[in-house]
């Protein structure tokens, strides 16, 4: 079986796995990183969102071989030294988490946006999360939380 090396959550790792596995499968089953969720498996819900070289992508549409040599960030890599990331804190503050299934993907999409554009307008926040479906919150709390991050 091939060996694949990539940077995951700021650490280089090497895994041995078959080529017919998606990044999503390897994260959840091989590496025990279950923060990344599987919803639709066809690129519509965004529950499986991770950052690939700082860009939000669906990990259900990436084969493991495609991340060789790339940087991947999952929700588990966001907090530092046990402290939540500012986006995570604001999600808690605004009650932007209900069942939580969409939350990891939602937070990573927000994080990718803020990385590129530290003071987005509300419209831009909405656009950045169009690929993340939430069945619970009605989105308002989520948008409020992201806008609040920009206020510091």
């Amino acid at each position, binding site marked *: 079986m091939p060996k694949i090396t990539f940077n995951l959550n700021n650490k280089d790792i090497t895994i041995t796995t078959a080529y*017919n596995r998606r990044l999503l499968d390897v994260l959840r089953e091989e590496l025990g990183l279950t923060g990344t969720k599987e919803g639709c498996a066809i690129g519509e819900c965004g529950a499986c969102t991770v950052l690939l070289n700082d860009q*939000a992508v669906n990990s*259900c549409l990436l084969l493991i*071989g495609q991340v060789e040599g790339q940087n991947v960030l999952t929700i588990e890599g966001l907090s530092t030294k046990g402290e939540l990331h500012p986006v995570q804190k604001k999600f808690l503050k605004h009650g932007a988490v209900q069942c939580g299934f969409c939350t990891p993907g939602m937070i990573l*999409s927000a994080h990718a946006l803020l990385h590129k554009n530290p003071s987005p307008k509300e419209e831009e926040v909405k656009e950045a999360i169009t*690929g993340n479906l939430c069945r619970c919150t009605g989105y308002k709390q989520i948008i409020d939380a992201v806008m609040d991050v920009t206020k510091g």
Partner: protein
Amino acid sequence: MIPELQFSRPKTIREALNLLATPGQNNRILAGGTDVITGIQMGSKRFSRIDLLIDINQIPELKTITENKAHIIIGGNVTFTELIENPIARQKLPLLVKAASTVGNLQIRNRATLTGNFVNNAPCADSVPPLLVYDALIKIESQNSGRELPLQDFLTGTYKTLIKPNELVTEIRIPKADTELRGDFYKLGRRKSVAISRISLAVLAQIEEDKIKEIRIASGAVTPIGERFPDLEKWANGQKISDELLKLLAKKMAEKITKANGLRWSSTYKIPVLQQTFYQLLKKVTD
């Protein structure tokens, strides 16, 4: 479940073409994966029994957008996001950039490619109508040969094109217009995000005083594949612009599409909407 397969990541076009020519097995290009991986995942017949997936994402030559005197040249693996953020495209291909911004959602646009969109050739491929009105040409290469042809000729039917299993689309070439062209793109989808388009239209025209000197019209989603309307264009060229003319043109267009499709259950909704949106689009472009 994704069946067992081989996987390769060439670094040059040459290497990719050599891999594509591997005899006796089913070799497939993998670009953004938004059609290929979902297709394999859902067990679609079009993506069954693939022996080797050739991931072209490590080939820098396929990622560039450049221009020379006569053409704007888009590499065969440029994503929608790369197109939308590119200064040349933003300035010179506004219809294409507008269409690209309506594709799927951000995660999809970050991966899906312009070329993948028309090689897959779903009726709803959003980038096709703008490419058609821009008279896009495509460059196709294989291990031992290469050819260039109009995109319009390349698209032959729903999910069908002239591509051969050993070929790769390496460039999209858009001829630069020598006069100012005005145009717009319109898409009506069912849902806002991830909307698979139900009607998409592109119009590009050269207006001279109060006349339509030249008009190019293309549709997507409402026709079995994205297509141009040469008869209508010929009919409209040289005509004096008036509200009646635009209304008549919209009516003729709706009739054509009804004929092309046969009548479908959605026609009672689609046809009047189509006629009206096309009229509005024409009005905007000729205003």
